[in-house]
């Protein structure tokens, strides 16, 4: 049995070997093997299914976030079920999957309370499929407007921060929690401050390692810094908006 756990389909990893799956050819090769293949993803399972259908890839099952539990819990449950039924999981002989699950896993008991309580029903899916209209509460941007605001290749918060810079603006701070890059970096007018790196020294296994401690540190220490070092001086001069 193979478990494919991923955050996004193009960068899927196998639970048994943690091998990166980056191309459709690799996905097809994986599912062509005479084993049961299950995709476990934090994305909507229905969206993953549509992508795989588009590729012509058929899997034994897809466990998306509609399952209502963290994907590590999903993997554990699948492995336990398969082990109980077949006495073992092929390809999981190494310690890597177990270590992967241990280091990436973080206890979030509240997630378990959502089990089966937040599946998208048929009515909700129909509402999602309808065109969304602007109203007093929702303001829509056309895709072209959104694209125009971003430089070519810009992505995520960093891209938006770069895009928001104008010649007349004073430097701003982009605040990230990426752990393997310099703690402070300046890109022209943009200042990047990477938080929680002292914690990552004790949790070197990845961004999810020590996650709760990083979140707590981020929550407590970033806002005062942001206010004192970045915001107040601008607001005093009246250009805070």
């Amino acid at each position, binding site marked *: 049995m193979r478990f494919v756990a991923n955050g996004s389909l193009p960068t899927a990893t196998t639970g048994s070997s943690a091998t990166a799956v980056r191309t459709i050819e690799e996905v097809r090769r994986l599912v062509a093997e005479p084993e049961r293949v299950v995709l476990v993803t*934090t*994305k*909507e399972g229905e969206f993953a299914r549509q992508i795989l259908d588009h590729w012509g890839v058929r899997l034994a099952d897809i466990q998306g*976030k509609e399952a209502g539990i963290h994907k590590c819990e999903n993997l554990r449950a699948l492995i336990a079920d398969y082990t109980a039924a077949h006495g073992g999981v092929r390809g999981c002989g190494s310690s890597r999957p177990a270590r992967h699950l241990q280091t990436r896993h973080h206890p979030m008991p*509240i*997630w378990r309370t*959502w089990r089966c309580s*937040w599946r998208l029903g048929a009515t*909700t899916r129909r*509402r*999602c499929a309808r065109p*969304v209209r602007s109203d007093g509460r*929702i303001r829509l941007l056309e895709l072209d407007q*959104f694209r125009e605001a971003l430089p070519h290749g810009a992505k995520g*918060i960093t891209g*938006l*921060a770069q895009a*928001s810079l104008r010649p007349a603006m004073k430097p701003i701070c982009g605040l990230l*929690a990426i752990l393997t890059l310099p703690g402070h970096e300046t890109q022209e007018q943009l200042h990047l401050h990477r938080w929680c790196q002292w914690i990552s020294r004790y949790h070197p296994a990845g961004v999810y390692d020590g*996650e709760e401690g*990083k*979140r707590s540190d*981020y*929550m*407590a220490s*970033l*806002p*005062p810094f*942001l*206010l004192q070092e970045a*915001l*107040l001086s601008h*607001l005093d001069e*009246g250009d*805070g*908006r």
Partner: protein
Amino acid sequence: MILAEEWHTVDAALHIDWLLRRAGVRPQVTILWHANHTFCLRSYPVGPLGRSCHHHTVSRHMIVPL
């Protein structure tokens, strides 16, 4: 303008909102919180966050949950 995303930043956004209010400069700052998946909305009370920040999304599939 402050733009935050992912559920990990919710408490930080609420903290910033509180500090700005205490400093008497809250009206000068716009806080946007970007919702890119429904985990965010299930993890935290949307009401208090909605009173402190403007929700923002680029996915029509997030409109209904929001």
